[in-house]
């Protein structure tokens, strides 16, 4: 009986295999079929990479020689040392200046971006033309790097931290404008309808309908920006716009590596301290939910 059944079962098996093959055709085709595009993309990116390595002069000898040199430099960075007590005071003051630049730049940008954000938001703007131009201006402001803004402001107000504040202000204005207007567009319009239905003006609709939803979001965005601006403010000194970056770039150029390592550690410690404080403030303002 079982001998008779076997051929039947075998053909049944073949049939079921066939059915499986037709049903999951994609899984039974050879692995290269249908992946031609993926392969060509991979090949193309590899070719571009190889061209880049070749044309950008990344020769083996240069890389190895540089790594040896870098290794020597790293060894000479230890132990990090401020040099002398009076230098340590100078570094601390420069770090304080960096924080001051970050704070003022962020705050100024937030204050100016707040009304402009309403102009760039679809639901609160005056008209489409205003919205369009507001958006494009923000894009342009963001498209120019902070170091370029710093160079331009140095031409206007001279070397020093003030140029740094204005540079941070410009590039933050672009990002705040975008973020604020997006937050305004995402606001729930039911409270607005409520205010309008009780006879409120459009100004009170914004004040009592949108603002209460908006403020926690904006505050958390401003705090995030302050964190990242602390990092930015510590490098704009490289082009002469105040802060600790000037000291850092001088030390690298004069190869005072122990002091440089000290300054880098100082920056890292300050940045993580600021991150910690901002996280605490954010937590106390908006609670863990909105994080």
């Amino acid at each position, binding site marked *: 009986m079982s001998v008779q059944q076997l051929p039947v079962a075998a053909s049944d098996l073949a049939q079921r295999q066939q059915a499986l093959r037709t049903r999951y055709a994609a899984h039974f085709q050879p692995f290269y079929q249908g992946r031609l595009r993926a392969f060509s993309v991979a090949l193309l990116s590899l070719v571009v990479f190889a061209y880049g390595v070749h044309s950008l002069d990344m020769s083996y000898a240069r*890389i190895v020689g540089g790594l040896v040199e870098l290794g020597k430099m790293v060894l000479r960075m230890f132990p990090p040392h401020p040099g002398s007590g009076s230098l340590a005071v100078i570094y601390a003051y420069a770090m304080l200046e960096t924080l001051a630049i970050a704070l003022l730049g962020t705050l100024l940008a937030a204050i100016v971006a707040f009304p402009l954000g309403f102009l760039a938001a679809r639901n609160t703007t005056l008209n489409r033309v205003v919205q369009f131009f507001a958006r494009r201006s923000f894009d342009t402001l963001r498209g120019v790097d902070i170091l370029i803004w710093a160079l331009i402001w140095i031409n206007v107000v001279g070397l020093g931290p003030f140029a740094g504040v204005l540079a941070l202000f410009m590039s933050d204005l672009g990002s705040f404008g975008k973020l604020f207007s997006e937050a305004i567009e995402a606001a729930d319009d039911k409270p607005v309808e409520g205010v309008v239905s009780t006879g409120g003006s459009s100004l009170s609709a914004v004040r009592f309908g949108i603002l209460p939803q908006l403020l926690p979001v904006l505050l958390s965005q401003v705090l995030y920006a302050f964190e990242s601006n602390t990092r930015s403010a510590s490098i704009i000194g490289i082009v002469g716009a105040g802060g600790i970056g000037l000291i850092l770039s001088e030390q*690298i150029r004069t190869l005072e590596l122990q002091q440089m390592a000290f300054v880098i550690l100082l920056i890292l410690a300050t940045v993580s301290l600021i991150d910690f404080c901002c996280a605490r403030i954010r937590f106390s303002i908006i609670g863990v939910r909105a994080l």
Partner: protein
Amino acid sequence: MNAPSHAGQAYAQAVAAKRRQVLLGLLVLGLCVLFAGRIAEISPSKFFANIGSFTSYFYRIAHLESGQWVISDPVEWFWGWKKWLALMGETLLMAYVGTVLGACAALVLCFLASKNMTQNTWVVFATRRLLEFSRTVPEIVFALIFVVAFSLGPLPGILALAIHTTGALGKLFAEVVENVDMKPVDGVLATGGNWLHKVRFAVLPQVASNFASYALLRFEINVRGAAVLGFVGAGGIGQTLLEVIRKFYYADVSALLVLIIATVMVIDAVTERMRHRLLGQERQA
């Protein structure tokens, strides 16, 4: 009779307490601002005295030496377009090579930095700190150091971008890996697969599109970054830009800025489309 007024009192108290808190916060902020203003040498008088030179700066970069508007004579405005386009190409290539190198390093490190793929907590801890260090130090600082070690040119810039990218992408990748569905991993383990099999057949298929999307986003950021690395001599268009700004070649400044902004916008648009397609694919699958 008594209850509503009691509630009213409680409400008034609560509001007053909140107002006090807000006022206190504003007071502290105001003091900080005053202190910061002194340190950062803010002088409104200098600002208003010189604001004219800011607007006139934009007026000047919008005019050719002949006094005409730049757009009236694009050929004269972009007189150095061959050199500038080559430099912009170099900048893009730097960003690309840096992103690829950094993404490859991040691809290796992210599995070591995620708790579900690496049991040894010390390895996870050490990898995470390494990634944190490489993204916290700004890339231009790395570039400054590498310029000394590797001498001037695009190479130090690429390495700086690669290290920063490793740190930033490594963190994002590790977060994606920690959120994968562990059932395929168990399946591979059950059939006797080793660690590499786990990564290749259980994790990578789940995370590949997310990884690619993050890498594209990073490329976009690195294009902006590569454009200013030349400020410290690390290759790309930045060095030329620094020169024309410092030497007051006004029309050149605007030409280069327009070139950079336009390139960044094009790259943004292209990568955004690619990312939408990648994430769309994932949603279909």
